């Protein structure tokens, strides 16, 4: 379940799927909607939020001293893995903050809907996301931003 959302955010960021999955108490799949927003405005908002969120970088931790080349390589791999996970979490949080500030609400969708929504290249995906953002108002309550 969690994989879909992480992958979706990664797709939006770089149009490539991510592989990591982690536990969470937040719904796994969601979309953004804003009552009365024009489709063109929603497209622009998606572009801007994508730009801002894709720029986030986890803070660098202290260098780990290792006496051997193999140890240094292993430490680098571990640090890279940790930073990759951190970056995905930060990017998701940045996306949510961006849409929150722009007046959108966040709504849960099913895994199947999410797969369909967050599929294809960025150009195709953003059209679907803008349609959804400017489409009919969802009937379910909004999630915490």
């Amino acid at each position, binding site marked *: 379940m969690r994989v879909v959302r992480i992958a979706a955010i990664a797709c939006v960021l770089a149009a490539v799927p991510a592989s990591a999955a982690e536990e*969470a*108490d*937040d719904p796994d799949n969601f979309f953004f909607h804003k009552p009365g927003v024009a489709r063109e405005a929603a497209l622009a908002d998606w572009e*801007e939020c994508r*730009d*801002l*969120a894709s*720029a*986030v*970088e*986890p*803070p660098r931790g202290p260098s780990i001293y290792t006496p051997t080349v193999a140890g240094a390589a292993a430490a680098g791999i571990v640090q890279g893995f940790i930073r990759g996970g*951190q970056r995905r*979490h*930060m990017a*998701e*949080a*940045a996306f*949510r*903050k*961006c849409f929150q*500030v*722009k007046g959108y609400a966040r709504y849960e969708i099913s895994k199947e809907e999410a797969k369909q929504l967050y599929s294809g290249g960025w150009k195709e995906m953003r059209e679907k996301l803008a349609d959804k953002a400017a489409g009919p108002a969802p009937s379910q309550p909004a*999630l*915490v*931003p």
Partner: protein
Amino acid sequence: MSRPMTRRPALALLAALLAVPAAAPAPAAEVLKAAPARLDPKLAYILVRLGKRDEKVWNLVSFYRYDPEAQDLRGKGRAKSNPVPKGEDKAAVIAAKPFLVEDGNYRIYLVAVTPGRWVIASSPTTSYSLGSWQFDAKAGEITHVGTLYMGPENGSSIWPKLAGIHSAPDIEKRAYTVADALLVEPATDATPVPDSLAAFPRRGAELLPAPRFGNHSGQMINAALPLGTVGSP
């Protein structure tokens, strides 16, 4: 034979270069340790009071030169074609030290900068790319920005208005995903100013919305809160 002949002009040229008095730029984007004896008419001075980040930690804020037309930091993103000329300040960073005065949960800072349009750009963790405040810092005078309060949106701030701001539980669970709130309390006659600065020309910053700029620092993002007051801790 020829060496002394060629060395003499070189030494003379060096002496001539060293003798030129006013070519060196004045110290810039310098956070001052003490009030200056006089204001340099070529520089602007940003006066700002920072509220403590939490019980133990002082705050950090960065200012950046802003292009209000392109709505970006000068020389970056949409304002790439409008870089800050060489020798001028692009940014000014205020960290815990040096400061002019400490008073309880506040520290007051004075920064000498290149005159121009500046924006409050970022906190230790957050770029205010989604909306901040811009102002002009004019040469030969002190621009009083007021008081800045910054802290994570997870209820941990010592400042009541910031402490009331929370993020979603899954975001608060990971500290590195929590953005900082920023509240600017504009300078008023009641805002404390060190006695050592009282004689200098000073004006309250005219704070204008800076609608957006790129996330060039790679931090979390947020929008500054509306101008207001924060309440006592």
